[in-house]
């Protein structure tokens, strides 16, 4: 935590992004936990042995078995030889690069648009790369089967690691490391996780050749480096890459086999690999927008073009006038210009609900494409009647279910495709009403995946039925049962005499508290609330009605009331793959204070809300609320001091809806797959199965 804190406090966005590398800089967590997710997911169930009844999510990584078995061990051994031959030469180069490392790392860190996505991709790929390259651990985890084959592979992979460590050496740990390959491997546990990831994967990506579509991006990932590196350095880097490529061609075959097998075994991952891409693209321009100069954008562009073919369009940047114009013309809901936008948040969709609602209502009958039930849900989103990740997701799914029920394929169209476009149009309508929550995004992915997977031969009515039951199943399994499981887990953490603090209104937390009360536990609840939504009052009302002992306070009293608290229970809109908890604005503050007071913070979040995105601040992705509500103090006519100031050009109102809580403020995340420390979330993101 400590290394990141100072960074975060600086307000310059460029500097803030330095924090990017550090979240991963925690000690490399055991792989096994992430696998627990895989194994418990239905997708991977086939490839993973059941782990018995224990609640503990910690297990031996099962998919590896299959994966490593699939790898022809014989092939790797001879291949390792030429590599090690070239090793020496490369080492030199790496040292060269390593010498300039400090400059480079700064560049790397200073230009997150390039590094962040790429590194994330690598992580995504590292599914297998860790596995292969971190064989020491691996061997430990299942020693008997693999020891021999890995021994052969190790040498080659160690080499690759050294290349990586030398070539990129992101974390600034490098001065020591690039001496010899062996030493790199040995120091592995000591080296920060990130640097290894980035480097390994840089390297790996080249090896994979065409195996992954991401290859392009990866190869170009070090591009920003070029701007500041000298010619010699560039050549060094290039050569390193070339050598790596050569090695890859030889070793690659085996690895591709390995990879394909792996991906085949865990279908969730193939999707992951795909889904990483859009988000990567999303994030890149987002972060650039405020700070990065135009030259860098030029660097971006060719890459973007390459990707465009198979990648969905990036998230709208609302400070891009041309795009906004374009979208406006297409929009079903009239988009209005919000005035006095806060500079830092210009890229977000501005709050316009106040003017949108009447307009949307007036056009009720004109919107042909939208199913009534979807329309109703959209209206509810817009008017704020349905809010909260779960409720919005459920409402959307139920509306889609109804829409699917009423759907009939138009002549000369394929059921699956036409339905997908229909659903997409519904979704874009819903987005116009309110930006999607991450939970909804995941549910949509699930639904689309299901539609895509429908067998062609299936009759329309059967397909509709199966989709509807899929939706029901999703709601049931991923939300209802997940909540119940979370409640069971969390209740174990409540003891008699506890004082539990919660913030705002989270459905899961409410269920936990109520359930604990029903179990007869004797505890007190402190509800911390904040304007303008005052959602805590709703929770307060319900808890009091159930007979719980409650204290209600506002967030400005948090530092005082935290003395009393034994534990903090928080809900989350999403948990991101770097462990960041994305939640109602104010959560980060509560978590931070709790951390300062050494109060454990338990975040309750269903696994379907996990997302592979990495987010370091609340700026690049957020949602703006109605700026006027923070002006108005209900019931206090006298205190509306700002009345009449709204039109002043010097006044910019900002009402953020979400914030990002860094993982180090969170002691534990309670999911339906068990309780995990937040750092492990690093891996959760990649294995999280959508379906």
């Amino acid at each position, binding site marked *: 935590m400590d290394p990141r804190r100072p960074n975060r406090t600086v307000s310059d966005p460029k500097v803030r992004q330095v924090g990017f590398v550090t979240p991963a800089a925690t000690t490399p967590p055991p792989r096994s936990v992430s696998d627990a997710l895989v194994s418990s997911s239905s997708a991977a169930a086939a490839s993973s042995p059941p782990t018995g009844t224990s609640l503990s999510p910690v297990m031996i990584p099962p998919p590896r078995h299959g994966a490593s078995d699939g790898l022809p061990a014989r092939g790797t051994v001879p291949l390792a030889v030429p590599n090690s031959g070239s090793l020496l030469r490369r080492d030199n180069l790496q040292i060269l690069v390593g010498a300039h490392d400090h400059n480079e790392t700064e560049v790397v860190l200073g230009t997150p648009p390039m590094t962040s996505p790429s590194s994330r991709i690598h992580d995504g790929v590292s599914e297998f790369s860790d596995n292969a390259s971190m064989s020491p651990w691996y061997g430990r985890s299942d020693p008997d089967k693999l020891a021999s084959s890995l021994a052969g592979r190790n040498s080659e992979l160690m080499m690759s690691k050294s290349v990586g460590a030398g070539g990129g050496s992101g974390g600034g740990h490098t001065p020591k490391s690039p001496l010899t390959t062996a030493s790199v491997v040995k120091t592995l546990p000591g080296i920060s996780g990130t640097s290894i990831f980035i480097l390994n994967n840089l390297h790996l990506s080249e090896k994979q050749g065409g195996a992954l579509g991401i290859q392009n991006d990866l190869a170009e990932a070090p591009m920003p480096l070029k701007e500041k590196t000298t010619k010699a350095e560039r050549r060094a880097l290039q050569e390193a890459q070339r050598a790596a490529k050569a090695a890859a061609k030889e070793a690659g075959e085996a690895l591709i086999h390995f990879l394909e097998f792996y991906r085949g075994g865990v279908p969730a991952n193939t999707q992951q690999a795909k889904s990483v891409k859009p988000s990567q693209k999303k994030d890149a321009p987002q972060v650039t927008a405020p700070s990065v100069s135009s030259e860098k954008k030029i660097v971006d562009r060719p890459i973007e073009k390459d990707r465009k073919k198979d990648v969905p369009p990036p998230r709208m940047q609302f400070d891009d006038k041309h795009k906004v114009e374009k979208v406006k013309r297409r929009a079903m809901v009239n988009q209005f210009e919000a005035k006095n936008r806060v500079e830092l948040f210009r890229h977000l969709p501005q709050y316009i609900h106040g003017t949108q609602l009447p307009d949307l209502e007036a056009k009720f009958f004109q919107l042909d494409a939208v199913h009534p039930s979807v329309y109703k849900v959209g209206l509810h989103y817009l008017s704020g009647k349905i809010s909260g990740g779960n409720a919005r997701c459920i*409402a959307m799914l139920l509306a889609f279910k109804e829409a699917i029920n009423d759907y009939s394929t138009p002549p000369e169209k394929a059921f699956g495709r036409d339905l997908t476009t229909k659903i997409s149009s519904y979704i874009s309508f819903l987005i116009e009403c309110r930006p999607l929550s991450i939970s909804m995004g995941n549910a949509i992915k699930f639904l689309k995946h299901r539609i895509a997977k429908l067998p062609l031969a299936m009759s329309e009515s059967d397909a509709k039925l199966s989709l509807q039951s899929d939706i029901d199943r999703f*709601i049931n399994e991923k939300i209802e049962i997940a909540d119940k499981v979370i409640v069971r887990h969390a209740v174990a953490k409540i003891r008699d005499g506890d004082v539990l603090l919660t913030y705002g209104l989270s459905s899961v937390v409410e269920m936990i508290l109520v359930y604990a009360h029903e179990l007869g536990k004797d505890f007190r609840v402190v509800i911390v609330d904040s304007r303008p939504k005052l959602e805590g009052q709703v929770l307060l009302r319900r808890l009091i009605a159930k007979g719980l002992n409650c204290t209600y306070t506002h967030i400005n009293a948090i530092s005082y009331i935290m003395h009393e608290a034994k534990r903090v229970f928080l809900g989350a809109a999403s948990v991101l793959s770097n462990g960041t908890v994305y939640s109602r604005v104010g959560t980060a503050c509560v978590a931070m204070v709790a951390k300062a007071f050494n109060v454990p913070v338990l975040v309750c979040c269903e696994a379907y809300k996990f997302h592979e995105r990495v987010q370091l601040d609340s700026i690049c992705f957020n949602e703006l609320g109605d700026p006027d509500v923070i002006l108005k103090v209900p019931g206090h006519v006298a205190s509306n001091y700002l009345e009449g100031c709204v039109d002043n050009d010097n006044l910019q109102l900002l009402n953020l809806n979400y914030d990002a809580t860094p993982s180090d403020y969170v002691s534990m995340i309670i999911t339906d797959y068990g309780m995990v420390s937040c750092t492990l979330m690093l891996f959760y993101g990649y294995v999280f199965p959508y379906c």
Partner: protein
Amino acid sequence: MTRMDFEVVVLAGGASSNLSPLVSQELPKALLPVANRPVLSYVLELLEGSNLKDLIVVVEGEDAAQLVGGWISGAYADRLHVEVAAVPEGVGTAGALRSISSYLTANDVLIVSGDLVTDVPPGAIAATHRRHGAVVTTLLCSSPVSGPSDSGTSGGKEKAKKPVRHNIIGLDPTRQYLLHMATGAEVEKDIRLQKRILQAVGQMEIRADLMDAHLYAFKRTVLQDILDQKDKFQSIRQDILPYLIRTQLSSEVSRNGLVSSESGSNKSAVQDDLRWLSQHREIAPSTFQDSQPLSLKSQRDDQRSHKCCVYIANESKYCARLNSIQAFSDINRDVIGEASHLSGYSFSAQNNIIHPSAELGSKTTVGPQCMLAEGSKLGDKCSVKRSVIGRHCRIGSNVKIVNSVVMNHVTIDDGCSIQGSVICSNVQLQERVVLKDCQVGAGYIVTSGSEHKSESLARK
């Protein structure tokens, strides 16, 4: 499937007694010309503009139905799909609905009065209805200022003559729910409010400046249930709506609706709503926001309550009902004047509409906010102000027409003066007739030199 699961019923009425000299057997209320277009066309075009093209038009009386049907099929042959249903005269709005209720299938029904002239998008009411999951949603608009405001010739007296009738409408503080409604006639002595409703809401806003525009969105199952069970209900506004408002908190309607919908069609709105509700309750109890004051304060009644919502039209929107003679002349004036976008005509530079085939004599002036339809002839030295003159009228010299409506085929001889009057089709005004605030029924002949003031002249 019907559009957005809404069906539209237009209650075009029959021969209304309020408009006695104007309407007749030959001219049902729906076809009364407003700016030389039947009043019904305003509703139909409003609906057409909202993409609602499958309509049911209910007309009282077989003859009237035929006339209306004939007109619609002529005017909207390929634009709208209209079914005209004839109901016996005097059954009232509820009766009219009852007779067609079995044809309704959609989730919700939009009921529009045929005499409504407005530019409030019906979608807005429908959307509000959907958003709240209400049993009934009604359009309220600010009551019209009756009488010509600035001409001052008739307005003042007219107002003085009639007692000012206000509709008393009770709203919740958010102005979304309808808590009380009483028409002017009922509010002579006291208003009786229901304690329970008042308790549930905490605060009620009583408004007298709003008017029920007779544009309702009903939940079909509920509407059908009420129509079935309450045989005596005659009128939507006087019976059904007050009943629904009264029983908001002790609803038998929604339960009945639920029962019937469960036994009947599998996919009804009520059921869906409850499913929704229960889903949210069960899964995420806290996420179902208790934003509605009704359920907030009285949660145990929640299951048994239904919602009556309102949509209050924006001040800038025009909204008027042609339900009296005064309203008739007001609307005529407004459609040519301030609400000119409704008329669908393009105005000349002088802010009036003169059909190219109309003939004007020398020194004849037609002021702004006037309309002169095709084939009409005006003699010399005439003056027309703020008036609508229909087709093929023959108007002599030295005639003054102010603030009046002259329908088709009217003959007006020299030297007449007409103020604030309505002159129906085929009327003959002989020389030097002076009319002030009069209504002249169709085919009537006013003898020369006669003067009338505030009279209703019609053939016996």
